[in-house]
Structure formats: structure tokens, C-alpha cells
């Protein structure tokens, strides 16, 4: 039962976590982008913009995990986590503006900014909710374990 995780396994676990995060945020941003296109009666999406989106979610995923204590999964939001939340949201908004994801449309950009903030808040609460369910499961298992060994 004595299990030691080596450096490679530790890196791999972190990397998988970042890739999962990149996919999660990419699909959320892609959904917004597709809605924007549909509203403007455009029925084809730019591969270049989608590539920019996936690359930026991947890079921001690294920043979230390595610089800002994985703030969307954090137990509580304090100084570093809060600054991570603000900085990463700003990076997304600046990228969307300068890379022209929404044709430099300021209203679309403003709605996108709100969407990113709401997205981060939702992800934070989803993880919190998941941990609450896990708490219950852990304590049930603990009670059963104690009953078994008595």
C-alpha cells in the first residue's frame, strides 16, 4: 500500500488537469463564439480563431495552475486566487479584442467579459459543490469503516 508518486507521475497528473481545464474553458468560449456568429447570421466558424482560443485556454490553464494556485478549484478565494481570477479574465478579454474574435464589436466584448467572469464563478461553485458531495461520501465511508472494525 506504500505508494510513492515519482516526479514524472506528478507532472503528468498536473498536465492532465491543465488539459482538462483547457478543454472546459475552450468549449465554454466556443459556445459563446458560436452564439455570436449565429446571432449575426454567420454559419461558418474560423478555424484560425478556434485555434487561437484553444491555445489561449491552454496557456491560461498553465498560468492558473502554476501562478495563481489553481484558483477556480481553490477551497477559498484569497489574495492570490482573487488576483488570478481578475488577471486571467482580463487576458481573455484583451485576447478577444486584439485577435478580433468578435470583430472588435464592443458590445459583444462587454458581454463576453461578463460571460468569462460568470464562467469562472460557476466553475468555482461546481468544484465546491463536488467537494461537498465528496465530504458526505467520505464521512459515510468513515462511519462504515469504524463500524466494521469495532
Amino acid at each position, binding site marked *: 500500500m506504500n*505508494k510513492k*508518486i515519482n516526479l514524472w507521475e506528478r507532472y503528468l497528473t498536473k498536465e492532465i488537469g491543465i488539459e482538462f481545464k483547457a478543454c472546459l474553458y475552450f468549449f465554454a468560449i466556443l459556445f459563446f463564439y458560436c452564439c455570436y456568429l449565429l446571432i449575426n447570421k454567420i454559419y461558418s466558424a474560423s478555424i484560425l480563431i478556434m485555434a487561437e482560443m484553444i491555445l489561449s485556454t491552454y496557456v491560461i490553464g498553465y498560468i492558473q495552475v502554476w501562478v495563481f494556485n489553481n484558483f477556480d478549484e481553490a477551497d477559498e478565494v484569497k489574495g492570490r486566487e482573487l488576483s488570478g481570477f481578475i488577471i486571467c479574465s482580463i487576458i481573455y478579454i484583451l485576447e478577444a479584442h486584439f485577435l478580433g474574435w468578435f470583430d472588435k464589436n464592443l458590445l459583444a466584448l462587454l458581454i463576453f467579459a461578463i460571460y468569462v467572469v460568470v464562467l469562472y464563478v460557476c466553475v468555482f461553485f461546481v*468544484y465546491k459543490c463536488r467537494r461537498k458531495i465528496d465530504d458526505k461520501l467520505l464521512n459515510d*465511508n*468513515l462511519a*462504515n*469503516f469504524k463500524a*466494521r472494525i469495532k
Partner: protein
Amino acid sequence: MSRINYKVIKNTEGINELCFNYSENSAEAQAILDFINGRQLKLVGRLDGAEFVINPDDILYIEIVDDKTFAYTKSRVLQLNMGLREVEEYLNSVKYFRCSKSMIVNIDKVETLKSLSSNRIDAVLENGEHIIISRTYASDFRKVIRGDYE
């Protein structure tokens, strides 16, 4: 469903002998064996030059501090003259869990568990102390309390 039978036989010297039969290695049989073994196990610890016999059931956790092994009970901290691995092998029960490189926790003395970010677990002991079970050990801990190792 495993069957457990027992018989009390009076031997030729007039002493009662307990004969315990079980069909497979079930959690219940293991708990009976752990109980019998646990009744015989004792640890010797030192405090202020005096030696004390400790019942392993009273231990909350055992920790290595500055290459010395300490057993923490509700009221005392005793120094053991064994290494952590030796203690682990000596106690040899699922309820004494190696929760970090330098610590063994008595699961029976864990009051509540809380799921933390990055798959860590916060264990609150009967005396109110918090012990963090890192991701490396948390998956094994979950298996132990689920009964996967029994």
C-alpha cells in the same frame, strides 16, 4: 456471504479454548483477528524520563519530528524507540494508516473528513487537530475506508 463459527472447548487441563472458523477472509473475520491481535499489542513510550505502556487504540497519530518518533494520545505525547516503518509493521492493522512520509494516523480516532482541492483530505481528529492527507496518500486512504483492502 461469509460464515463465521466458533466453539468453546475445555481442554485436558481444564482451560477453555476458543476455536474460530471462517469460510473466507471477510472484513468481519479480519476485524475479529485485529481485535484479538490488538488486545495483545502494547507500545512503550517515554515521557520526562519515565516509561509508559500505551494501548495502540489510544493513539491518535504517530509522527516523526527531528528523526524521533512520537505517539500522540488525547492527553500525552510519548517518544517511541522505534522508527515509523517498524511501528507500521508492528501495529499491522488497516486502521493505522500511513497518511504522509512522516505520519501514521489512527483512522478510528478521526472524527470527520473534509474533501479539499487537488484531491487532498482534511482529517479532523477527536482532539480537534487537523491532519492533511496529501494527494499521494489520499487515493489509498479512500480505498481503505471503502474497505477495498480488507
